[in-house]
C-alpha cells in the first residue's frame, strides 16, 4: 500500500491522512463490484436471445413438429418418406395430423383432420 511514489502516505501513517485514500479505494472497489455485476447481468440477459436462435428451427403445423418447411403433400408423399400420426386434444376432442417427412431431398408436410 505504501508506494515509493507516495511519500506523504509513508511519512505520515496517521488515520487523518489515510482516510481519503481509504475512502477512494473503497469507492473504487464498490464501483468496480457494481460495474462487474451489471456487466454479468447484461451478459446473462443478453444471451437468452442467442440461446433461442441456437435451437433447431422446427416447423409447427397442427400437432406436427416438422424438421423441414412445409413443402406440400405431393412432394412429401412421393418416394422414400416417413409418416407418423400425432394427436392433440382441442376443446375436449382429439384432432389428428399425419406428419410426413421425406428423406432426400428434405421435405415435410402435415395432413390434419379436425374432429367434428
Amino acid at each position, binding site marked *: 500500500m505504501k508506494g515509493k511514489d507516495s511519500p506523504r502516505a509513508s511519512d505520515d501513517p496517521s488515520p487523518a491522512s489515510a482516510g481519503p485514500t481509504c475512502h477512494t479505494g473503497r469507492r473504487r472497489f464498490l464501483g468496480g463490484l457494481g460495474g462487474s455485476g451489471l456487466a454479468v447481468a447484461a451478459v446473462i440477459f443478453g444471451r437468452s436471445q442467442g440461446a433461442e436462435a441456437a435451437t433447431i428451427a422446427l416447423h409447427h403445423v397442427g400437432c406436427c413438429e416438422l424438421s423441414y418447411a412445409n413443402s406440400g403433400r405431393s412432394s412429401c408423399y412421393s418416394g422414400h418418406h416417413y409418416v*407418423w*400420426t400425432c394427436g*392433440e386434444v382441442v376443446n375436449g376432442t*382429439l384432432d389428428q395430423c399425419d406428419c410426413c*417427412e421425406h428423406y432426400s431431398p428434405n421435405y415435410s408436410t402435415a395432413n390434419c383432420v379436425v374432429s367434428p
Partner: protein
Amino acid sequence: MLFVLALAVFVLAIAVVILFAMLGQLAGRVPEPEQRVPFLKSLPEIPLGGVPGEWPPGLPGRQECTLIVLSTICRSCADIAQQLSAEPGYADRSDVGLVIATGARAGGGEEFAERHGLQRFRYFIDEHGDWVSAQFDLRLSPAALVLRGGRLESAYSFNDVAALLMKVGEEKKRQEEVRT
C-alpha cells in the same frame, strides 16, 4: 460529499428501475399456464392381448409396465415430456417406460430426451417408430400401452400423465380385487 451521495442514490434508483424492467421482460417470456382438461381415450384400432416378440433394452420389464409413446415429430408430445420431467416421481417409477419414436432426421431421439430432461427415465429410442409399429401396430403419439402378464392389456390416447397413471392404477386395483 452530498453531491456524491445524491449521485449514488440516483444511480441506485435507476438500477432498481432497470432490475424491475428486466423482471418484467422475463415474466413476459414465461407462457401462461393453460388449464388442461384431462383427456383419456382407448384406442380401439390397436389389437389387445398380443405378446411382443422382441423387448428392447432400456425399458422396464414387460410383465407389468406402462409404455408412454412419444415422437420427435409430434408437438403435443413435447407437452407430455414437459409433464414427465416436471414431476420427479415419475422417473422413479420402475413400471413406467418411454418409447421415443424418431422422424426422418437422424439422432433426433437422444436430442428430444435431452431437450425435455427425460434422461432419468427408462427409455428406448425407436428409430422411425419401427419397433412400436411392428409389435403393437401403433403409429400414433402421444399414446400409452399398458402391459400385464406380458400381454398388451390396454392402449390409450391421452393428454395428461397424472390422469393416465391414475387410470392404470385403478385398473390394476380392480383386477386384483376380482382375483381375490
